[in-house]
């Protein structure tokens, strides 16, 4: 019989990062979220590294023997599987002013919490896991709530923000998406 996977997830990270680094990265995540919520999408896009992979897999209900296939793979369809070029195309779509799903734009609030940081082999790079709750309200009464986990790759660079994002994997806590579209960023 398959084992319940609780045991393997109860390990603490090998090294907990310094309070200074923890605060620095959390402040970066809050800053990034504020750009999205303030509709400064072009500024938000400038935080995405040239080698960004922005990926939100599908999520399925699987039996115990196939639980490892819960998320769609890299050769499957995904909600998002984006490069810098395709994110830029999405930005240009919004900038036309004719992107009806975001015209007028959704009101969003990105809440980021449960931030766990792991230093990577490259001393300028970190893996940052966080939980998010994203509230969206648009038009008159449409309201969507998305929850999930983000697994980010952050790279320290010389810039006002201090970091760029080279990986964002988004695990949405839904199987059938309960919204009529995903016209916003996570």
């Amino acid at each position, binding site marked *: 019989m398959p084992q319940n996977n609780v045991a393997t997830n109860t390990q603490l990270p090998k090294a907990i990062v310094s309070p200074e680094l923890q605060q620095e990265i959390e402040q970066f995540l809050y800053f990034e979220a504020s750009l999205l919520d303030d509709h400064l999408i072009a500024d938000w896009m400038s935080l995405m590294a040239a080698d960004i992979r922005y990926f*939100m897999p*599908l999520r*399925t*209900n*699987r*039996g115990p*023997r*196939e639980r490892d*296939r819960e998320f*769609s*793979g890299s*050769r*499957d*369809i*995904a*909600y*998002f*599987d*984006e*490069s810098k*070029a*395709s994110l*830029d*195309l*999405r930005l*240009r*779509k*919004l*900038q*036309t002013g*004719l*992107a*009806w*799903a*975001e015209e007028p734009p959704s009101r969003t609030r990105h809440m980021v919490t449960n931030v766990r940081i792991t230093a990577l082999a490259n001393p300028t790079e970190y893996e940052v896991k966080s939980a998010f709750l994203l509230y969206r309200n648009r*038009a008159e009464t*449409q309201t969507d709530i998305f929850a999930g986990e983000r697994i980010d790759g952050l790279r320290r660079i010389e810039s006002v923000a201090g970091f760029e994002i080279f990986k964002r994997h988004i695990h949405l806590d839904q*199987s*059938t*998406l*309960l*919204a*009529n*579209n*995903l*016209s916003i960023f996570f």
Partner: protein
Amino acid sequence: MMTVIIRRNEKRSPNVDLSDVFDEQAGTISPVIYSDPDIYQMELERIFSRSWLFIAHETHIPKAGDYFSTYMAEDPVIAVRQKDGGVRVFLNQCRHRGMKICRTDSGNAKAFTCTYHGWAYDIGGNLVQVPLEEQSFPGLDKSKWGARQARVESYKGLIFATWNEEAPALAEYLGDFRYYLDTVLDASEGGTEAIGGIVKWIIPCNWKFAAEQFCSDMYHGTMSHTSPITAAITEEFPALDPTALSGFQFRASNGGHGTGFFEAPAGTSWGFRIVQAAGLVEGFDPEAAHSRQAAHLGDKRGTIFSQHLSIFPNFSVFNGASTARVWHPRGPNEIEVWAFGLVDKAASDAEKEQVRLMTLRTFSAAGTWEQDDGENWVEVQRVLRGHEARQTKFNIQMGAGATRNEGADFPGTISNAYAEEAARGLYAQWFKLMSDEEGTSSKRGAYVHAAE
């Protein structure tokens, strides 16, 4: 003009007056058909329980025991590959107290065991085990209590099922629509395979808005989708002038199926798709892909691009991307979209990756094109909460009286791309089935599907 008043089974619902909801001569449609709960209940019986419904692609369940949980309208069903290579589709409902016998989306199974009392069914849906059988159900004839089986047939990789024992064979049901469906399903040796993953999402709108748009509506493209078109314009791929494009629409002679498409100016077919994917995948040769498909199709269908189509009632494809989907109805005011990608089996890995990226970036819940379709249908549906709005007829006259036969080397009843002839075909089929009580389950007395 047909005028039909349908009297429903008096015990089950009030009379529903369908007179005047669709008038093909006048070119009008009453929006009550998108919002009325009694009409919706009639649709479940008269449309969905009598038509062939899409289930899955053959490649979703390649090996014996592979299963795929889906729906036939609101009814949950399981499609399972059998040891003899065939496919069975049966109701996902235990015959004891009606619990689902499969609660996962897909996988490989040796049996389906109900998690309520433990009745177990084999991969053919036959009841094979009843817990404590000697004490609890002595003398039970298990062969009479299998899961309810649907009729199953395939067409070029697509599995369909129906509850209607009297429906024509699937190939006959598709009829002269097959010629245009083959542009998608038979464009290369070996046909198609499904790209992994089903995108499932909810749109609060009536199922007919989606089915009709994919059947007939090229007209909305330049307005609804102006933003992704504009955003992708580059020097290398300048804007295509939609008014200068030659395009056609086809209304199936029977059955309510329809399609429309452009003829691609030389070299633009893949170019358009590549810019919409935000780039060429390394190693992909669009010229070779185009030549392979044009040679295999062997006629003017090799020039078709941006093809939309619907198979009545609720299966659609957009072959500008490579997306196929079912619009599962969920009451008059909601659908679940189940979308997947289609790609030629003969395609190289690079071509498959190009198609995957193009499809998910354009036609998916987050797709740059599809986002805006959902927005339109949701708003239309909300307006129909208004009593006066529901009594205000819609115009469905575009291209009326302007059809021709065997036009421009394309066979059948042909219109220009910007027409609503195929939509009128869809609603004519809808009206025909809704007006015909013969063969419905209530007429057959099949509400109690007792053991034979």
